[in-house]
């Protein structure tokens, strides 16, 4: 059998799906994660290893510090403290670093160097991967095991002042908080005064265990005027004063308490030479980390270079310092200088706890963990540790004990470093190899040769190109719906212009003058044609088009003229139904008005009307049996919505009994399956018996209306008008635009695609994961069943593109007698869907270190991947239909 271009396109799309899957696998590395959930907080700490002897120390080690103050200065670069700026503007801190009881480090932050992931890294000790965001469905609350949560569980009282990201991450953890917003970048005094103003009161009170301060001013100065601005110096002295105030107050309080307190000064990320952050230049990843406590030994003079550590090490250190379990997903290792002053037994215990936690994480994430050098070192040091404990319990107080202890410590530190490194490399790198393979597989597709194109189709592709290029801007991705609404509107206006010209200029239908100027016009002003409509035909085509259709008279003529405006009005109404995107998402829309409980009656009327319109429009092409099934099914949809409590029966306006509507939903499912079955049966019949052309058309329409019924069941009641108007626009376009004007297959395909995309956004979707309507997956089910829930959610999300594609198949196979129409359409559809994905993948790869890569571009990448999967399904359907038509003919 000849391999049609449609089949070829379908195969290419299938390959592209594979490519995107590989790319995604590389782009979103699975994070290192402890499989056990966060519930077993009460789990006992790992006991001290003891070779043979029984240890008498099994409970968790007690805290080292009574109070902990964390001063986090946003965008504090290491040279602001340790460099010449620090000496000039932060004298007190420099004094502490050089001579005081403190330990200073340079902590390396992993990209993306943006505040929220960095806070997560500091508090969980893990490296947040994008997949977390998907798992939590953008819920801002930090669900992983973290120091703050552990401290809350241990009954510590925590206070927070500063960037409100913390309040979003830890909404119920602080006994007192005041969030400042980082929205006004140009404000760098007020934002910090709002933090400092609480300081005196809080330091005097002292009824807290942990105090966290997050200063944003420095970051704002960096964004506005860069790291060499004189404002930086002022801000650094201000921070120095804050630090001095806290430190003196802590020292004064310390006299009353048994345990010393700890003051931490750190930055979440650095600052590039231009003042921004987000990428991975040295200035952005290197932050100072200074731990100050009277428990530490005063260092003798002499300047030492601060040790380089990872930012994730802070979580483990804080947990040990506060006597808490180390967060389970932490990949950091204890900052050993902090516990150096403790007795040998305690030092060993802390190191042991840390290594046990890391090796557990390694066991759960690496299949061949036993061969890992870190794990081997861990086993060895644990054995040595056991020996040491036995000697210790035997009251052996000789030199041997000290020597052995030092050796064990060294061994432990080595093990910790190796474990930490091998865990971090699991996540830190993008899987570049997979990314390249995936990108190459995707790119190979658009590069294939294609059959000849008319100029008109090229114009349509220019519109698509504009959209594709807009995907490089984060705002255009956030507001992609605007692009589609804009394109669809322009398409309608262009159609209207074409119709007007065809109808009003008919009278003087003399043969068009082929002016020589046409050549010049073609080269010089392609942009003009672009505006004049994507569908402005060439004069010769106009004649060709007009000939077959006799001039329609009277009413129909006016209907044809009015139809683009009807569609435009429909689109405008739908647009105000659901506000989506980011910038204007907060504006009131019709959807919210309808779903509020005061307007239940209006919602019911609208839903009933929409279902009626759906029935009237969808029943036309069906066989009598399916008509009945469709009517009953749509009634069932309404009953389901009543049972769920969304809408009302007019005769029972105040019924309160709300159920899950399982019976009603399953009732509708039966009819959906019935209609789909009838449709498939008709299709098979037309193929096997080589029956008339009509059976096939009816079969296709039945499949279409079965999907419409399913969509009606799954979409939320205020979205039923979207479904109804989608059917309405399809009907109007079919009978008044495509048939009389005789557009080519490619044009019709592209129009279907554009409308499908616009309807994707009309129903309230956006490029943000949070707008996916998961409730669709639960319709008709008692509990969560994974496979159907995923399928139903995917269908409900992509219902717009799917229904339009399905309509395209029906339209082409009923209108176009030529068998190549379908394969040509399939080819066009595959091309127009896969080009944006291909270009987008290249864009995302080059924007890997963009500030918004996690919040904007990555969700869009997931959407594109899913859309491609849907496209592949559609193309498979096309190809199947194409085969049927080939066999029939």
């Amino acid at each position, binding site marked *: 059998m000849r391999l049609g271009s449609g089949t070829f396109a379908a195969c290419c799309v299938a390959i592209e799906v594979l490519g995107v899957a590989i790319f995604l696998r590389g782009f979103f590395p699975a994070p290192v994660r402890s499989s056990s959930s966060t519930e077993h907080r009460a789990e006992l700490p790992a006991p001290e290893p003891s070779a043979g002897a029984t240890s008498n120390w099994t409970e968790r080690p007690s805290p080292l510090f009574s109070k902990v103050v964390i001063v986090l200065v946003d965008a504090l670069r290491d040279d602001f403290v340790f460099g010449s700026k620090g000496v000039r503007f932060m004298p007190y801190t420099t004094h502490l670093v050089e001579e005081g009881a403190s330990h200073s480090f340079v902590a390396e932050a992993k990209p993306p160097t943006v505040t929220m992931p960095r806070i997560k890294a500091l508090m969980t000790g893990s490296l947040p991967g994008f997949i977390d965001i998907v798992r939590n469905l953008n819920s801002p609350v930090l669900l992983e095991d973290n120091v703050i949560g552990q401290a809350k569980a241990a009954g510590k009282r925590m206070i927070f002042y500063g960037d409100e990201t913390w309040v979003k991450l830890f909404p119920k953890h602080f006994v007192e908080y005041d969030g400042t917003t980082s929205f006004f970048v140009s404000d760098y005094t007020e934002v910090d005064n709002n933090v400092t103003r609480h300081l005196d009161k809080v330091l005097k009170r002292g009824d807290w265990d942990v105090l966290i301060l997050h200063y944003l001013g420095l970051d704002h100065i960096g964004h506005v005027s860069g790291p060499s601005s004189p404002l930086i110096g002022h801000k650094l002295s201000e921070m120095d004063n804050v630090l001095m105030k806290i430190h003196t107050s802590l020292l004064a309080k310390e006299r009353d308490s048994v345990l010393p307190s700890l003051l931490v000064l750190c930055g979440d990320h650095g600052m590039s030479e231009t003042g921004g952050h987000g990428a991975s230049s040295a200035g952005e990843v290197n932050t100072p980390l200074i731990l100050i406590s009277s428990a530490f030994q005063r260092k003798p003079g002499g300047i030492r270079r601060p040790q380089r550590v990872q930012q994730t090490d802070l979580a483990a250190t804080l947990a040990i310092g506060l006597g808490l379990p180390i967060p389970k997903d932490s990949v950091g290792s204890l900052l050993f200088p902090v516990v150096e002053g403790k007795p040998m037994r305690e030092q060993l215990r802390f190191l042991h706890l840390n290594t046990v936690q890391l090796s557990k994480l390694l066991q759960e994430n690496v299949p061949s963990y036993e061969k890992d050098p870190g794990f081997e070192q861990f086993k060895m040091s644990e054995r040595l540790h056991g020996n040491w404990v036995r000697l210790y319990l035997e009251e052996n107080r000789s030199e041997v004990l000290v020597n052995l202890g030092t050796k064990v410590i060294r061994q432990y530190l080595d093990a910790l470093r190796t474990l930490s490194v091998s865990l971090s490399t699991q996540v830190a790198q993008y899987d570049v190899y997979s990314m390249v393979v995936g990108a190459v597989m995707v790119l190979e597709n658009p590069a294939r040769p294609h059959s000849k194109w008319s100029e008109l189709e090229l114009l349509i592709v220019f519109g698509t190109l504009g959209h594709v290029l807009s995907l490089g801007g984060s705002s255009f991705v956030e507001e992609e719906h605007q692009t589609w609404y804009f394109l669809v509107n322009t398409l309608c206006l262009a159609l209207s212009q074409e119709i007007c010209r065809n109808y009003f200029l008919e009278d003087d239908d003399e043969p068009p003058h*082929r002016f020589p100027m046409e050549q*010049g016009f073609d080269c010089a002003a392609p942009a003009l044609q672009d505006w004049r409509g994507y569908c402005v035909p060439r004069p010769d085509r106009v004649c060709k088009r007009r000939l077959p259709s006799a001039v329609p008279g009277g009413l129909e003529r006016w209907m044809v003229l009015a139809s683009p405006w009807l569609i435009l009005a429909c689109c405008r109404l739908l647009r105000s139904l659901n506000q989506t995107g980011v910038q204007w998402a907060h504006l009131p829309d019709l959807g919210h008005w309808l779903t509020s409980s005061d307007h239940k009656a209006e919602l019911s009327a609208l839903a009933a009307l929409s279902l009626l319109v759906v029935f009237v429009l969808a029943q036309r092409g069906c066989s009598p049996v399916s008509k009945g099934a469709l009517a009953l099914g749509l009634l069932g949809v309404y009953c389901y919505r009543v049972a769920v409590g969304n809408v009302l029966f007019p005769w029972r306006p105040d019924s309160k009994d709300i159920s899950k509507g399982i019976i009603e939903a399953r009732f509708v499912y039966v009819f959906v399956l019935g209609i789909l079955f009838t449709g498939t049966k008709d299709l098979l019949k037309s193929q096997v018996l080589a029956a008339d052309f009509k059976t096939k058309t009816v079969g296709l329409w039945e499949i279409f209306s079965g999907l419409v019924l399913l969509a009606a069941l799954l979409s939320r009641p205020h979205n039923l008008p979207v479904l109804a108007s989608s059917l309405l626009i399809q009907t109007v376009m079919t009978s008044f635009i495509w048939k009389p004007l005789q557009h080519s297959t490619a044009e019709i395909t592209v129009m279907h695609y554009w409308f499908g995309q616009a309807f994707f956004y009309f129903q309230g979707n956006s490029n943000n994961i949070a707008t996916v309507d998961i409730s669709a997956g639960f319709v008709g089910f008692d509990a969560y069943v994974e496979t159907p829930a995923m399928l139903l959610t995917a269908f409900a999300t992509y219902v717009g593109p799917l229904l339009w594609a399905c309509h395209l198949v029906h339209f082409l196979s009923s209108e176009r007698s030529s068998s190549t129409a379908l394969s040509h359409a399939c080819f066009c559809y595959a091309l127009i869907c896969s080009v944006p994905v291909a270009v987008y993948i290249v864009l995302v790869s080059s924007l890997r270190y963009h500030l918004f890569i996690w919040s904007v571009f990555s969700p869009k990448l997931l959407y594109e991947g899913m859309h491609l999967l849907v496209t592949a399904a559609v193309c498979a359907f096309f190809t199947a239909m194409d085969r049927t038509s080939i066999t029939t003919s």
Partner: protein
Amino acid sequence: MLTLLQRVTQGSTMKNTDIKRLFYAHLLCVFSIILSTFVPSFFLESFSILETHLTWLCICSVSVIAVNLVLYFVVKPNVSSKRSSSSHKVARFLKCCIYFLMSCFSFHVIFVLYGAPLIELVLETFLFAVILSTFTTVPCLCLLGPNLKAWLRVFSRNGVSSIWENSLQITTIASFIGAWLGAFPIPLDWGRPWQVWPISCTLGATFGYVAGLVLSPLWIYRNRKQLTYKNN
């Protein structure tokens, strides 16, 4: 043979003078826009395009209409004005006014269909419709009169019958494209004052119109050898 040559040279010189007149007329329009931008700041306090945008829109629109009317009476590009009575002229003028208003309203409707807010910012949207009508409908009315069929003819392919109509086609389409492209910066999150509806669109339309005014005589001059019109 000689007569033919004479006719050809005569035609080309006629065309050259015509292009010159077109160029000067367009320069006048451009100057009217520039003046409307700078002159009012001498009379009005705190006048600037962005902050007192609506005032600027009104002034710009009025001055462009005035220049177009002056050009209509001075240059008289369409020779077709037959002997007509004054009452006929008044009726024609009223018809033009009605057409202008209708075009303003229909542009307003189209903007709302494109997503402009329905209830808020009505004045802004309407003034944008007015300025776009000024750039597109007013020259059409001056040149072609209230004759829809002629408009459709000019704006379909190969329908132009003089360089005036050709330049009209180019400037009108350029204004539309400018307004259309002007909508693109709106969703960007730069927070600039000119991104507010409808400033970017009006500025886009103005730039498009000016570009059309400047480019169309040049383009016609460059392609004068290829251009032959039905009625010339």
